[in-house]
């Protein structure tokens, strides 16, 4: 039995559930070639040339391939195996409902961006041969964008062959320069680790990892994860930017589109991949100021006020968190109310805090009852009032406090007896 047949049979018997999809390559020449290679003793009567799309051809073939792809993508050949596409998007234009001009505004309302508002943002998004990560996943399209001369300059580096990888990574690194801050959507856990792996494999220094990085997925999640069904970039575009893509190639089809080119020379879908990636980058640029606005006024954007307030507090801006929560008190759930009460207490606004705790306690919140007990015992110095909040016997803390308060009251009444 031939190797291939033997293998498929064995694999099926070993419980493989789906037959591996062989034969994505042109069948005739491939199989002839395989037979030739499997039995090297047999003279090659079949054509020995295996015309892979961009395989091991002569150098001239590779150059023609690069030129063809550059033309198809409306780009230029940057180096053997690398095509560069460059577009300028005028800041005067609009992306959905947003003017890109707002990019010039400082996004300092976004907690992550605070203190970096003078930095230069570089938007980054990659298209890869897979989503699983690991060293077998290749970045075949690396898109970068930055503001230059009153325009958003979008540069997309596209591999026409694996051999172009090192040149692509090095060229992108050069364009990044030294001080730029990366802006991505899920780039901290996906794009940048992957680029780091590619640099390591290509044997070049990694210009992506040790660099400030603002991953917009995180502020988006914090503001909308509890409100929207998902936080995919397409959802964000629809809801925040009012941008709708027409005839967009889904990102999940990008790997197959590039592999079709590499394996069979079929470049039909690559322009669509490039357009998809281009839109991703422009959306990122529009999203940065939009998210800053969301964090300045979450109520106006229907965002999760408590989540946004928590982010401000974690960055040290308690006052802003308190003001936001206070302004949207009617939209808060109990956790949000507890957080507001805590901030009011820390700001010394006892009456506001107590009102919140009373409201929560009336709905059976034991923790708030404990806060009230503490308040009456230590601030008001009224243990008898405090005792009234310690009636919940199912809670150890309440039981202990009750016992302690009773002792305290007893001692006091004892003292009174003695004085009387």
């Amino acid at each position, binding site marked *: 039995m031939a190797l291939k047949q033997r*293998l498929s049979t064995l*694999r099926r018997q*070993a419980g493989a*559930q789906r037959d*591996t999809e062989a034969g994505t390559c042109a069948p005739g020449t491939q*199989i002839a070639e395989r037979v030739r290679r499997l039995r090297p003793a047999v003279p090659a009567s079949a054509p020995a040339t295996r015309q892979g799309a961009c395989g091991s051809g002569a150098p001239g073939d590779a150059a023609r391939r690069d030129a063809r792809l550059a033309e198809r993508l409306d780009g230029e050949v940057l180096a053997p195996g690398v095509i560069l596409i460059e577009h300028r998007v005028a800041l005067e234009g609009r992306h959905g409902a947003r003017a890109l001009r707002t990019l010039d505004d400082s996004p300092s309302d976004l907690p992550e961006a605070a203190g970096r508002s003078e930095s230069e943002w570089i938007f980054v998004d990659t298209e890869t041969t897979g989503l699983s990560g690991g060293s077998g996943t290749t970045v075949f399209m690396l898109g970068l964008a930055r503001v230059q001369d009153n325009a958003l300059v979008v540069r997309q580096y596209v591999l026409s*062959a694996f051999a172009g990888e090192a040149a692509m990574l090095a060229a992108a690194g050069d364009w990044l320069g030294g001080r730029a801050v990366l802006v991505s959507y899920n780039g901290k856990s996906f794009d940048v680790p992957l680029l*780091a792996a590619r640099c*390591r494999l290509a044997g070049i220094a990694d210009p992506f990892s040790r660099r400030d990085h603002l991953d917009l997925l995180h502020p988006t999640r914090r503001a909308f994860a509890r409100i929207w069904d998902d936080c995919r970039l397409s959802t964000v575009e629809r809801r925040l930017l009012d941008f709708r893509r027409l005839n967009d190639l889904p990102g999940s089809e990008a790997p197959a589109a590039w592999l079709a080119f590499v394996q069979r020379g079929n470049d039909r879908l690559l322009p669509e991949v490039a357009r998809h990636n281009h839109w991703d980058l422009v959306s990122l640029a529009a999203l940065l100021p939009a998210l800053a606005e969301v964090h300045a006024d979450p109520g106006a954007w229907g965002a999760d006020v408590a989540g946004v307030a928590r982010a401000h507090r974690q960055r040290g801006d308690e006052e802003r968190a308190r003001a936001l929560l206070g302004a949207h008190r009617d939209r808060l759930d109990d956790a949000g109310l507890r957080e507001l009460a805590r901030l009011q207490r820390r700001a010394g606004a006892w009456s506001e805090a107590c009102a919140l705790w009373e409201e929560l306690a009336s709905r059976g919140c034991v923790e708030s009852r404990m806060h009230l007990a503490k308040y009456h015992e230590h601030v008001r110095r009224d243990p008898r009032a405090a005792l009234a909040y310690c009636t919940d016997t199912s809670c150890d803390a309440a039981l202990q406090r009750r016992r302690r308060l009773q002792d305290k009251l007893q001692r006091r009444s004892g003292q009174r007896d003695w004085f009387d």
Partner: protein
Amino acid sequence: MATPAAQMPRAGCPPDLDSESLSDPDPIARLADQLKAKYRGRITGELITPARPGRYAPLPPGLDPRLCAALAARGVDRLFSHQAQAWEALSAGRHTVVVTPTASGKTLCYNLPVLQAALNGQAKALYLFPTKALAQDQVAEILELNRAGELGVRAYTFDGDTPGDARKAVRTRGDIVVSNPDMLHQGILPHHTKWAQFFENLRYVVIDEMHTYRGVFGSHVANVLRRLRRVCRFYGADPVFILCSATIANPAELASALIGEEVVAVTESGAPQGAKYLLLWNPPVINPDLGIRASARSQTTRIARMSVKRGLKTILFAQTRLMVEVLTKYLKDVFDKDPRKPARVAAYRGGYLPTERRATEQKLRAGSLDCVISTSALELGVDIGALDVCVLNGYPGTIAGTWQRLGRAGRRQRPALGVLVASSQPLDQYIVRNPDFFLGASPEHARIDPDQLLILLDHVRCAAFELPFREGERFGGESLNDMLGYLEEEGVVHREGERWHWTADSYPANAVSLRSVAEGNFVVVDIGEGAQTVVAEVDYTSAPMTIYEGAIYMVQASPYQVEELDWEGRKAFVRRTRADYYTDAIDYTRLKILEAFERSASGEADNRAQSAHGEVHLVRRIPGYKKIRYYTHENIGYGNINLPDQEMHTTALWWQLAPETLAAAFSSRQEALDGFLGAAYALHHVAALESMSEPQDLGRAVGDGDAQWFATVGANGRGQMRRLDGTELDPEAEGRFRPAVFLYDNYPGGVGLSAPLFESRAAIVHGARALVEACECRCGCPACVGPILASDEVRGYSPKAAAVQVLSLLQGDGA
């Protein structure tokens, strides 16, 4: 006798701090004496290994002073001789394998050079243990030494339980990373760029419990190590391998097959040893006509009861998960009658969830369990503290495995008692009746086949994902170009110039399990009480035999009944039941010879026996199951099983006899058929002994070799000829009658068992014949040719004699 540990000079093994003072000075010797006095007739052999003094060597002169201080703080001021030998070989940069018994301080053999290298030059080490539990024990031990000497060496485990936020610290800061082959395969190598720093400085790779890497698992691990070395070369590293093993016959050969390099073997232990008593125990004959003995199970529970009642910590090993559950139930019925008290008896086996196993290990270490019943799962060095008595319910199948399990008692140089209770299986009987054979035998060879086609292809796939293959590179024994060509057609790699790049949107390591050739474990889901809870996992190959609809599946001796088997979804839905029976699947196997790779010298012309090995196709059908009642073990019913036939291409070894020879030697074809079935039974067991495989790694079958018919033992104890659909055939009515007996490699594609068996076929036939002839039964019994139900008179001939006749004819194959 006093505990030897108390007077033992301290050397490269932590001192025994066990201060347990039993009121009885030597309860173990006393139990051994009582057993011998009471059951003299059942004890066929006895071995007393007296306490043995240690042999020592001074600490090596180059040893880092901080390390010397750490050792001194733990009471170690010299080494055992084998530790010093290992140090010397490793200092010379040689790959080294150390083979010494449990508790001989073998961990110091690798910890010393590794710590020395970490202290002196930022060198890193990777430790691989077959299981997560062993890895965790190991880190605890290094940390102890680390603390003792304030060495500042960082050792971390890295496995599936390592939390995501801790992983980066392990990768970048760990001096010693302790993991397992599965994690290396799925979690580390495919992400090697994240480990770049680690690989660049990797000086030592430690592989403990090497003997577990044999058969399928070992063949996979050898390939994972090929990938590891390939990735190391990418980072310019060439680590030295340190391997440790329990006793096997060919440690150097196995080590060298695993890592693909020459190794130095250190095999003489210098560690002292406590006294050990070993008894070989044969259950009494209860039906001399049929040669039926009392069950091993009844004897094992009896010995365990005596031992636990005397306050001795006892471990029982059983051969199958089912037997673990049965024994656990019987002992729980005695010792855990009161549900308000904490359990004294627990079961431990594969298929339980990890948390449950960890809890049992913990209870064993704390001494809160009195008795544990286990499969080979506890054979490894999982730290379960000191046990006193070890009872083996049945011969584990290998001499090495037997000593490994017996080593579970008396780990801390305390006296220990082991009892090997023979079952009615032929090997067991052979061993208890020939105690000198067992007590004097050398252990078996461990074999792997790293170039098994499917396994190799799996790892070529994974390796291609990790780094592009280059023209002229080598990986394994098959042609790498052919393999890559196959993968290119599949569309997962793409050749560009001199390199093959990975081009699939997938993560191949996730689809490859190191523990099997097969893919896709089944999960057992409890659907009782509304919820769906996963209670166990079953591997693909054993699923048809264990979780068919109607099967009773046991977890911690609680019976669950399988209500639905979702074959495609790989799920069995079960519900707790109160059944008083267990179930046992019936198995029909039909074989077709596809190609003989090699034949014996004898030809068909001279009517002598022919033997060969080659490729076969087999179809297995599980038509039904038997219900067997607890305690009485009577058959109380049958059920049908409706499962797809299991097909398999594999390799096999077979013997055939010419029809003329059979006609001359036997009065009827029925007699010849019975002879073949009996011979197959004996051959199977002797071959398992020969190949050091788990008995289930090897299958046996009798049939025509052309998939027309197969033979099976019917309910009346007589051989039957059947077609796969179950139709019974009349042997006399068939045309040409040319039965063959097959021993096949029980994995798709085979794992290389049949070729070495073909080489030693003469010894196997000879051993099988000796086994049957030496058996004390009259006309056959489970100890030689398999259970015989119909009596001699009804048949008119002895199945045992028929088997001997077949075996003697097979001896004429010119081997």
